[in-house]
């Protein structure tokens, strides 16, 4: 087990290093000088040079890369060129919108997908299964930004139950949760559809296993065998998908945050890209990639704990 963890840790570190090099390289090829962008077209050459110096843009590339990486390791993400505040502070402000939104959406998709997947699998081929599978096909096909528009049209404009956008802050928790509700539903729909399909197929795989026959032979009813044995085992692949979905939701809210004017990470990235505030883009993208890689690592470890066969394979 220790060898397995060590090998996964090595692969985790290498992935993070590779990802940081790729992100840095991509940002470096971006045409346009951020200093010139900040000063506008009428900037004097010496002012431009001075600003480039101050921003560290005149240093050689490897030096800038190491400064960036070591900064991040110590929690220093640099200072935003447009906001003039530390990137870490910007991220810290925005994460309290994006993180709750991602958790909210994940919660909604799970409470929809679990029952749907279980009902579909336990009534395979029946009306319930067919209608749930049809609904998931539709759920996967609906673009979430269009769904968001429809939600706004119905619940904000026609019924006036929710506001069409904006975020009041966490000083008023109930209002904050209310303002995240429509965005969370819009984000949750396609995720719920995917999750329900995974839940169904994983459960069907398990229902065909020998241990279920044993459980039935032992005298358990179909329902008991399903709940006590099959559902529990079927959860393993479902948890993997949930892990992956979480990191997707953290970044995937980018368009939804735009639609609902939510001051989250996605909106921060979008605005920073438009303003050529590359230090923010660089750091936030790295942060998101970091989350994905670490979540994958955690899932791998969780798998190894649950399934000893995986450990011996390395």
């Amino acid at each position, binding site marked *: 087990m220790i060898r397995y963890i060590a090998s996964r840790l090595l*692969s985790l570190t*290498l*992935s993070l290093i*590779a*990802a940081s090099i*790729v992100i840095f390289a*991509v940002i470096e*090829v*971006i*045409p346009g000088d951020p200093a010139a962008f900040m000063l506008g077209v009428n900037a004097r050459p010496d002012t431009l040079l001075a600003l480039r110096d101050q921003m560290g843009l005149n240093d050689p590339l490897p030096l800038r890369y190491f400064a960036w990486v070591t900064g991040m390791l110590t929690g220093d993400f640099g200072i935003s060129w447009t906001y003039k505040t530390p990137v870490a502070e910007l991220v810290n402000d925005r994460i309290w919108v994006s993180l709750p939104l991602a958790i909210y959406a994940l919660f909604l998709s799970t409470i929809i997908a679990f029952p749907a997947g279980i009902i579909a699998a336990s009534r395979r081929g029946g009306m319930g299964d067919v209608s749930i599978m049809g609904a998931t*096909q*539709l759920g*996967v*096909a*609906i*673009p979430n*930004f*269009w769904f968001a*528009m*429809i939600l*706004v*049209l119905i619940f904000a*404009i*026609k019924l006036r139950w929710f506001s069409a956008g904006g975020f009041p802050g966490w000083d008023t928790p109930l209002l904050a949760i209310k303002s995240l509700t429509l965005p969370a539903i819009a984000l949750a729909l396609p995720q719920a559809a995917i999750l329900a399909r995974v839940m169904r197929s994983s459960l069907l795989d398990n229902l065909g296993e020998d241990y279920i026959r044993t459980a039935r032979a032992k005298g358990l009813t179909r329902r008991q065998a399903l709940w006590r044995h099959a559902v529990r085992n079927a959860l393993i692949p479902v948890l993997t998908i949930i892990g992956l979905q979480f*990191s*997707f939701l953290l*970044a*995937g809210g*980018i*368009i939804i945050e*735009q*639609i609902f004017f939510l001051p989250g990470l*996605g909106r921060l*990235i*979008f605005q920073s*890209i*438009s303003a050529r505030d590359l230090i923010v*883009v660089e750091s936030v*993208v790295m942060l*998101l*990639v970091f989350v*994905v*890689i670490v979540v*994958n690592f955690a899932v791998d470890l969780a798998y190894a704990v649950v399934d000893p066969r995986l450990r011996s394979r390395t």
Partner: protein
Amino acid sequence: MSRSIAIGATLTLVFLGLAALSFIYTPYDIQSFDIPNKLHRPDATNWLGTDHFGRDILSMIMLGARTSIAVAVLAVGIGICIGVPLGLLAAARRGSLLDELIMRGNDLVFAFPSLVIAILITAIFGPSAINAIIAIGIFNIPVFARLSRGAALPIWERDFILAARVAGKSSLRISIEHILPNITNLMIVQGTIQFSLGILAEAALSYIGLGAQPPTASWGRMLADAQTLTSIAPHTALIPGMAIVLMVLGLNLLGDGLRDWLDPRIRIART
């Protein structure tokens, strides 16, 4: 042939047909604005109504289908043309450092938030259909590389491959002449699924203004234009959205149906 193939193929063919037809005929010219006729609901003259410039929505849907399909097909093409050779190479050199590098490279691409990177690419190189194709295509590469490697590995263990080796064929020839034909079905199925994801991604990019630029019609762009009009003219938002949903639904049903139909194990289980 299953019901999902029939429904999926019909929906897909309808949109392919509309896109093809748009090259020679659209009910109206969308380049000319007809402001007095703006925001008409669907009626006998404009079957799907008109938008805020008085342009015929049916004509725009037809031209938008062309954009969506072109972007998605080319993005899948990038994925297949680069991903499949990489996957075959990794399978032919399985266990080697090269294999490890290719697979870890795939994992790395998967770790990047695709939409964020697509936005970054189109923002850097300027919004256009070409850049949207590249941005979407990059994320198709690891999908096909991983899938083709996974499918090729068990084939390498088969007896007919051993026979080909004994006959003196090189790994490259075996990969092209024997492995590739055996994984084509799988690639077609995955291609259909990636095609539908490409349609969604193109719509998302053009919705935020980073896809095909006006005057080229695109479904995402139509939705962006309709956003502020939803309360007075809901059809301007509903119709392009329905077009996306139906096209994606059609491709997904087709992909699912084909997978079941091409997989002998599932076919036998059914009969």
